[in-house]
């Protein structure tokens, strides 16, 4: 299981009855891996992530039932919860396992090959001078993998995934309104993954758009 399995983008583009997604899925309720509790689906389907974390007057409330107030709060129990095949009471195992993967990954896998073949411990530590600029994370996101606790590594991973998801916004012009409406995305040719200048500059978002 990974996050992207349910937060799809262009993977089903060429599939009959598929199409472009804005980091969401096609299910009524997203499937979860089989465990002895018998559950087969999550309580909800996967909410679209594009524009999901735009600042808004009422504050940020995530999941359709406002289960979480921040992306990091959402990501941690997702990595350590039922979506990733962990049962209630297995959070400590989940955190320990994730930290083990970060410590032991050697960058030889197919996923790493798309990201410079760098081991996770090198990328997350962030101090190796051989790390290319595109993969050298800023200091606030780094964690000294060699000395960090499992929880510190887990938090660092959650912060990075949080940064990734919060960067998912529709492309906009300088006035704010979207220039890439969802209907356009449904045509299947646009990823609509852009960075919003006003957001990066801390500028307010138009009220109508943030509701």
């Amino acid at each position, binding site marked *: 299981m990974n996050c992207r399995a349910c937060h799809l983008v262009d993977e089903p583009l060429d599939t009959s*009855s598929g199409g472009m997604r804005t980091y969401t899925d096609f299910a009524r309720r997203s499937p979860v891996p*089989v465990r002895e509790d018998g559950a087969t689906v999550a309580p909800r389907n996967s909410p679209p992530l594009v524009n999901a974390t735009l600042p808004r007057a009422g504050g940020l409330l995530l999941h359709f039932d406002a289960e979480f107030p921040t992306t990091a709060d959402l990501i941690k129990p997702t990595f350590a919860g039922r979506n990733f095949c962990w049962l209630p009471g297995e959070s400590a195992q989940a955190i320990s*396992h994730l930290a083990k993967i970060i410590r032991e990954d050697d960058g030889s896998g197919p996923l790493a090959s798309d990201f410079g073949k760098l081991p996770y411990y090198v990328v997350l530590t962030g101090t190796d001078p051989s790390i290319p600029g595109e993969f050298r994370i800023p200091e606030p996101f780094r964690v000294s993998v060699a000395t960090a606790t499992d929880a510190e590594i887990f938090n660092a991973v959650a912060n990075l*995934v949080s940064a*990734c998801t919060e960067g998912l916004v529709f*492309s906009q012009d300088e006035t704010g309104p979207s220039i890439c409406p969802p209907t356009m995305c449904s045509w299947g040719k646009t990823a609509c993954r*852009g960075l919003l200048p006003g957001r990066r500059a801390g500028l307010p978002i138009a009220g109508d758009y943030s509701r």
Partner: protein
Amino acid sequence: MRFTNEHLSLPSLCVTFLALLSGNGSFAIPSPVLAQDIEEAGDPSEIVIGERLFLETRFAQFFKQFVDRGGMTNQPFPTGDPVMNTTVTVGEPFPGPFAGY
């Protein structure tokens, strides 16, 4: 497997076309920097690495079972989690993009 933003050409073209039309026929290029212009420069590194973690399948308990049975962290997964084999829809499922992982 990496999502590379290569699909931005159509909206970029649309914006450029609208910008040209808005110049009273004078084909003026707007001066403000647009979001997609920034994106062309590449995502910040924390987003790039966050994306890699977003795609990582080995954090799941299913992979821990594999490790507990003697599998190695960097060893190719012999059989992926069956839940990844299909993408569930409100109709017929279609093949999952991460089948085998």
